[in-house]
């Protein structure tokens, strides 16, 4: 309904709202006040404050009333000369890209699969994905910990008893960093794929069948049609979904934190989110690191955001 609503009769510019002359301007602004205040005090103010504090020495003493000292870029240089911080940044980027790519590949494949199978198979797949999508993150985390459990986890049981890998019988999945990140990736991908699959499937339904038929009559093979027509036509959906995946996977916290609490070595498994959390007593350092993370997010996504803003007329 929304897509077909012209504002001023006949004019095809729905994004420009009509002017109302009779209302005083002040009334309009007062509509924005409540939302602006809440966002301002709970997001804006902490953001500005964090940025300011990132140039200060702000540790335990300052929390108990000592005045904060200005230290210039000290926090930043401390962080950026620490090779461990670079390790974590590199690890976070690698984790983010691997997860985003794997999620996209599986999600797009499942969307295409949904389109190509019969009704009952499609609905089965969709319900299954919706169930995973609707599960609260903490509940998912506990289930996956139980599945990967060392003693009685069903994954170890299958690997050792069904596939005959005896060494896996009492395997601990989260002690080794690489294996830890494998488990984290499985969980993150399991949770994220439904969103990608449904969004892309919705995009696929928008591809007009006439175009496909015309291409087929012209002799284009199924593969040519997919790469030459379908993919370019659903490109906007693909890029938004990919953008969101990159943002989400870069700042992943809950999954890593919960798995760490399950007994993984923290230092070898920290990503940016958990590293910031570990500075929770050093506000200056936490602020600096959070600022670095924001810059990193912008660097990874800025291009896409600009593109989207250009295409989407406000």
């Amino acid at each position, binding site marked *: 309904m*929304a897509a077909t*609503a012209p*504002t001023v009769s006949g004019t095809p510019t729905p994004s*420009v709202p009509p*002017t109302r002359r009779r209302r005083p*301007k002040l009334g309009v602004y007062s*509509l*924005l006040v409540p*939302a602006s205040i*809440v*966002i301002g*005090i*709970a*997001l804006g103010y*902490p953001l500005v404050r964090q940025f300011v504090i990132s140039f200060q020495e702000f540790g335990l003493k300052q929390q108990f009333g000592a005045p904060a000292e200005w230290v210039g870029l000290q926090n930043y240089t401390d962080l950026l000369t620490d090779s461990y911080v670079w390790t974590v940044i590199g690890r976070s980027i690698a984790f983010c890209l691997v997860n985003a790519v794997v999620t996209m590949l599986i999600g797009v494949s499942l969307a295409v*699969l949904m389109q*190509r*199978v019969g009704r009952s*198979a*499609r609905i089965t*797949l969709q*319900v299954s*994905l*919706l*169930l*995973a*999508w*609707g*599960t*609260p*993150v*903490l509940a998912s985390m*506990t*289930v*996956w*910990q*139980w599945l990967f459990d060392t003693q009685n986890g069903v994954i170890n049981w299958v690997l050792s008893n069904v596939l005959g890998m005896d060494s896996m019988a009492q395997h601990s999945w989260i002690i080794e960093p690489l294996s830890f990140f494998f488990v984290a990736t499985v969980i993150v991908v399991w949770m*994220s794929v*439904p969103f990608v*699959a449904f*969004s892309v*499937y*919705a995009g696929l339904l928008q591809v007009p*069948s006439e175009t*496909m038929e015309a291409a087929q009559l012209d002799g284009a093979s199924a593969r040519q049609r997919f790469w030459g027509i379908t993919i370019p036509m659903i490109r906007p959906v693909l890029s*938004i979904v990919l953008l969101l995946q990159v*943002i*989400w996977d*870069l*700042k992943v916290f809950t999954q890593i934190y*919960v798995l760490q609490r399950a007994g993984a070595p923290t230092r070898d498994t920290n990503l940016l*989110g958990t590293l*910031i959390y570990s500075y*929770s007593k050093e506000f200056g350092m936490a602020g600096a690191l959070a*600022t670095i*993370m*924001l810059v990193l*997010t912008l660097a990874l996504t800025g291009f896409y*955001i600009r593109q989207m803003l250009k295409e989407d007329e*406000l």
Partner: protein
Amino acid sequence: MSTVSAPTTLGVPADRPTKVTATRSSESGRSQTSRSRRLLGLLAIVVAVAWVFPIYWMINSAFQPLNKLQAENPAWLPFGGTVANFRQVINDGTFWQAMRTSLAVVVIVLIAALIFAFLAALAVSRFRFKGRKSFILTILVVQMIPAEGLFISQYQVLDGWGMVNKISGLALVYTAAILPFTIWMLRGFVAGVPIELEEAAMVDGLSRVGAFFRITFPLLAPGLVAAGVFGFLQAWNEYTLALVVMTDPAQRTLPLWLQGLVESNRATDWGVVMAGSALIAIPVIVFFLFVQGKMTSGLVSGAVKG
């Protein structure tokens, strides 16, 4: 906050017919197509079973007594199961305490976020004023800020105001976190109701306020429901900010409570943990399935309109 912040564009109702593949020309082509279609169908079912298995396993394990969970071979079906795990969770007072905290937070967040977002959406989609574009742009950019890059600072600010370990404190940061997307979503809905409808009603003698509440508001109901559902899922499932703000065990929300349950039972009794997870997850999943179809059409049109 954004652990679940998925439903930006959401999917499609499950029963929407596909406009699949082009015409098939020859007999052999048809039989080949239907065979590969059946193979793909099989693949889809296999994927579906694999994807749903963790949820099945949660429910199955929740009904198993401890000796079956620790047996050499796993029990694949919950036959002869027990509800003792559920009883143990429900009889534990901390579960209900966390439930009350979660409910209180969610109710405050939903009321505040829906009213505030609705007013703001009304302003940006029905009026043209100076600063409108910058407001919308701010809303867009704010959504990109990861909560994980801000939570220490938010904690500090709340601490300064004595709002740590308070329902009001958590509700404040939650409301701020979901407001941008809620405004963005409602904006599409408000813009989707043609203003001519309202104006026609005014010509017929209704006041502006009357026209708004009799004509426009009912048409916006689906949008408000969709935004409410989105906000509910966000606030109900959120973990990160709750972890930082609610440090006192007596003030735990349900996700924090569940993590506490895991940490005290990890080595000993997974059945109780799974019962706790199931109690938290199943109502949310059912609710999600129920509203997903309804939400979708609204969300998509809201999103398309942008």
